[in-house]
């Protein structure tokens, strides 16, 4: 064996350095996650922005942002039909004329209900990436509520890069992908203020 590392099942296997991103389906562009992959478990994870997005409050309405995030999550969760509906509703909400916007609102509500009611989705992703306020499914449901027009603050699932890296460490590759997609990742704070490095 070239270089092995201990594993949770006691079977030491080759460890492989990988980096996920900066362009992956369902993840924000510019996000890079590096770690060592052993079997399918990622350890020593570091998350960083390759291309730092503009910080500060975004200009889009909360429901549009939620639909955006929900669509990304659904892509990673492997539900292309629902993801397409979410994107269609989002595009309609961003339109200029009121009729189209109303159509977008009408489309967002049943979509949110469909996602919330899907037993298969619940069975598939329940229990992954649990934090103090729920797992990936709870976060997806929060976006569903925001998309359907419930009053929430701008990004219900905000997380910092550091917390995110700690959360996904030791998870399987598929779980890592889902967990990252279930957050609205905040832009990295400017290095001058904190002096910490993710490099």
């Amino acid at each position: 064996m070239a270089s092995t590392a201990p594993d949770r099942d006691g079977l030491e296997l080759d460890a492989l350095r990988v980096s996920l991103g900066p362009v992956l389906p369902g993840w924000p562009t510019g996000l890079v996650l590096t770690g060592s992959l052993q079997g399918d478990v990622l350890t020593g994870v570091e998350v960083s922005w390759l291309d730092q997005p503009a910080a500060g409050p975004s200009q889009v309405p909360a429901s549009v942002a939620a639909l955006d995030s929900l669509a990304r999550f659904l892509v990673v969760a492997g539900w292309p039909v629902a993801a397409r509906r979410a994107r269609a509703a989002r595009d309609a909400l961003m339109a200029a004329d009121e009729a189209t916007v109303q159509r977008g609102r009408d489309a967002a509500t049943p979509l949110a209900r469909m996602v919330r009611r899907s037993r298969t989705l619940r069975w598939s992703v329940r229990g992954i990436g649990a934090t103090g306020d729920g797992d990936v499914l709870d976060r997806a449901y929060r976006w569903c509520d925001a998309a359907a027009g419930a009053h929430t603050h701008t990004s219900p699932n905000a997380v910092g890069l550091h917390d995110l890296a700690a959360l996904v460490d030791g998870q399987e590759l598929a779980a890592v992908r889902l967990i990252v997609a279930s957050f609205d990742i905040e832009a990295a704070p400017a290095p001058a203020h904190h002096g910490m490095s993710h490099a």
Partner: protein
Amino acid sequence: MPDMTTPETVATSVAAWGLLPAVALVVAVALALGLVFAALDRVVVAGGDANAMAGPSRTVVRWLVKQRRTTLAPDRLLWRVATGAVPVLAVLSMAVVPIAGRTLWSTSADLVWFNAMEALLWAAVWLVGWGPNAVHALVGGYRFLAQGLAYELPLMFALITAGLAAGSLRTTDVVAAQADLWFVVTMPVAFVVFLASAAAFAFWGPFAAPAGADIAGGVVSELSGVERLLVEAGRAIFLGASAAMGATLFLGGGSGPWLPDALWHLLKTVLLMGLMVVAGRRVPVLRPDRYVEAAWVVLVPVTLLQALVVAVLVLSGMYA
């Protein structure tokens, strides 16, 4: 039990029309079924937009003209062999499906042949993931192995159940045994498991995890150009072939009033494809670590029970 048809009386399509026309017919039907499946699939994913029907044909052209890209230090030999093998195996699995009442070649082990092609497809898809020497493709390959392992046994039991009731492993005998009653009536579990396993072997729909978006396309992520086309065509052809096989084994093949047999078979096949697409696209992908347990702990015993029920029915003279 019905009389076993001896090999002499079964006219294979090779015997009836000659080798080349028979092979050409099977390949043409396989390609057509694959294209129909891909078109139906595209329409459902596009939310019922009939314009999407032409999507697959456009994609074929795009992949044909697209430049191939490659990866660092791939295992070129195995990769090439595997990408070529996927569509060939899918077409070969059509060899035992009756077209207009005749199979390309009729053996005393047709059902096992169909299953063996699936097993070979399994190895080929793993190689497609292994070949490019890339993380996402390899993870997809491993997922496919685990998935295939979990679904191989239920699929075998489903196929054997049909053979058990017919008293023969020959597909034409299975069709003949359904003259009075379609097998789907007495073996619904085997029918559903067969279709689900077919989707799992083509890693499509709810079983698409080996090519999932969460691993950036998995086994197909590093394929481009003609190679991408070969693998995707193989998947679609295999799904089409499975629908045709499902209609043969459980829906009485070409039997039906008024219309000619071939047309009935085609109708049932297309109907089955539509059913698969609509049902399969309604749900998100099932995560492998969840459903593999369900496959081993629930599906294997359930399909065994189904076989037991059919065996008891055979003994009681139900299919005589």
